[in-house]
């Protein structure tokens, strides 16, 4: 391992340790809640990124997976299942939905797929809203023992697992195949990369981790409308956070998530949420001018400083024979 890799790994471990110790030395609940929000959005955006950033399939209905996770986990947990089992189920059911729609959906290329997912997200939102219109509240026995720390750790765990999986994925041969499909699907196919299989697997992973995130959400909140996590705003959040941070990278959704929550807090001066407007504008700007998001911006800044004087810029040799 290079020195840089050793340092990065050490830094990562230190960070994780620090995060793990948070509930011990941070006394204010509101601060912990803030960090929980960051972890939530990081997980949400990272799970989206597996399909949207790595595989290049823009899913505009990610809330369907997230929502299903909340629905399944909440129902099972409140009916007596152990939390871990309920969480697992909450991760798996969205995968089943993903497989169900993925197989026909991936016949659709590009934009058709995206608007298809948009429609699908809405369908689930409407169904859930009609079927379960009443608030789900924690029964009294749970209310009494409600403690923030385990919820914090659950979110931390989900975030670590999601980001970790994304990291392993990106570095694997599978990740390479995904990147090829994202860039030039036809070319990748001609090299023997099965687009279908890759996309379906990416979709499944994306759904699974979104479901886990949903499960953590279900465990965390005392009361909410079951329809709420299926709402389009969650799909929007996943997409915008991943884009603003930088799709296709591991650290993008993390940066984006932190940025989002911080901005939201800073802008929470008025009653109506102005942060969505600001975020929307930022998102448009990023798509137009800086498609790599904040990560790309950071790299550009680093490059600007890294160009040492005296080092000639090597020109690209002209290719031989062309059209």
């Amino acid at each position, binding site marked *: 391992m290079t020195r840089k890799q050793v340092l990065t790994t050490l830094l990562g471990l230190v960070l994780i340790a620090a995060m793990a110790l948070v509930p011990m030395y941070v006394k204010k609940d509101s601060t912990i809640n803030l960090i929980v929000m960051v972890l939530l959005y990081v997980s949400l955006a990272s799970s989206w990124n597996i399909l949207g950033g790595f595989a290049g399939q*823009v899913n*505009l209905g990610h809330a369907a997976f997230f929502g299903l996770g909340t629905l399944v986990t909440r129902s099972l947990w409140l009916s007596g299942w152990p939390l871990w089992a309920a969480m697992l189920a909450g991760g798996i059911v969205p995968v089943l939905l993903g497989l169900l729609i993925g197989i*026909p*959906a991936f*016949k*659709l290329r*590009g*934009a*058709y797929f*995206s*608007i*298809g997912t*948009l*429609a*699908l997200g*809405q*369908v689930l939102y*409407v*169904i859930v809203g*009609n079927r379960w219109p009443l608030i789900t509240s924690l029964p009294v026995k749970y209310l009494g023992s409600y403690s923030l720390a385990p919820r914090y750790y659950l979110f931390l765990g989900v975030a670590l697992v999601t980001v970790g999986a994304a990291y392993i994925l990106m570095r694997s041969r599978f990740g390479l195949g995904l990147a090829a499909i994202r860039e030039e699907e036809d070319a990748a196919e001609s090299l023997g990369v099965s687009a279908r299989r890759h996309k379906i697997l990416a979709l499944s992973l994306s759904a699974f981790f979104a479901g886990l995130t949903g499960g953590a959400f279900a465990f965390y909140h005392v009361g909410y409308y079951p329809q709420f996590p299926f709402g*389009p705003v969650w799909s*929007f959040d996943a*997409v*915008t956070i991943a*884009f603003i941070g930088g799709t296709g990278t591991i650290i993008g959704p993390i940066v984006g998530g932190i940025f989002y929550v911080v901005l939201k807090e800073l802008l929470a001066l*008025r009653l*109506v*949420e*102005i942060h*969505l*407007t600001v*975020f*929307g*504008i930022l*998102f*448009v700007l990023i*798509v*137009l001018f800086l498609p790599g998001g904040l990560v790309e911006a950071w790299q550009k800044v680093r490059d600007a400083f890294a160009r040492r004087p005296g080092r000639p810029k090597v020109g690209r040799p002209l290719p031989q024979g062309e059209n």
Partner: protein
Amino acid sequence: MLAPTIQSLVFGILIGGLFGLAAVGLSLVFGVTKFLNVSHGELLMLGGYTSFWLFTLYRVDPFVGLPLAILALVVLGVVLYKLIFTRMVKLSDETKIKNTMLVGFGLGLVLQNVALRLWTADDRGITTSYSSHVIQAFGVRFPVVRLISFAIAVVVLLALQLFLKRTYTGKAIRATVQDWEAATLLGIDIHKVYLLSFVMGAGLAGLAGGLVAVGYSIKPDMGLEWTLISLIVMVLGGLGSFVGTFVAGLVVGIAQSLTSLWLGGAYREMVALLLFLLVLVLRPQGLFGVKEG
């Protein structure tokens, strides 16, 4: 048993006309520029609010105020095009569709929230002196306002067809759709064609919004619903056929209305969406469209 069904059919047709109008706007823009502007519904919403405020603040009759709603959206369309969409003209088709969809997505978010901040989340509607007038014929009630709206939609679409088929500019637009390189080599300014199409799409959205405001109701988050409807109808009707798109609008309107009657209002929204998913998977070129080679 029959009477409510026919009544439902009528209602479905009346709103279906507006679905068709909205979808044609989107289809025009997409067909010419390959911009998939998913903030189309928000543009419609803004048209509705323009009409609403003109009526509420200045007592402008909603039908008389339609040209103003269209104008407002035309201006907005120019602004949006020049600020944002003009930068994506040069992209490859696939990238163009993807990027404009993303941009439209963000734009829609912004517009929706601005509307929410300015005008609150309340449902709004325009109630005029004649809003409750109904024509009774064959045992069916035809609300006058909705009837007029439908008629306006049909007339405008016919005018649009004529424009595209008969006028020079219309033919230039059609030529650009078919082969923009060949068109530009004939001296046709592609940028102007793009701008015109985009602006016309926005204007149609504004018109549709104004008609929705008077016959139905509007609220800031109606954009997503109408964008989806426009997309659904556009795909169902197939690109390149406005007649097909209009008919598809009627189909969706009727489907929604009948579903509401038979299965209850809760599932109304779902029908269109499910129909959409079905068509996407089975026949992406729509019911009337031509399969892309």
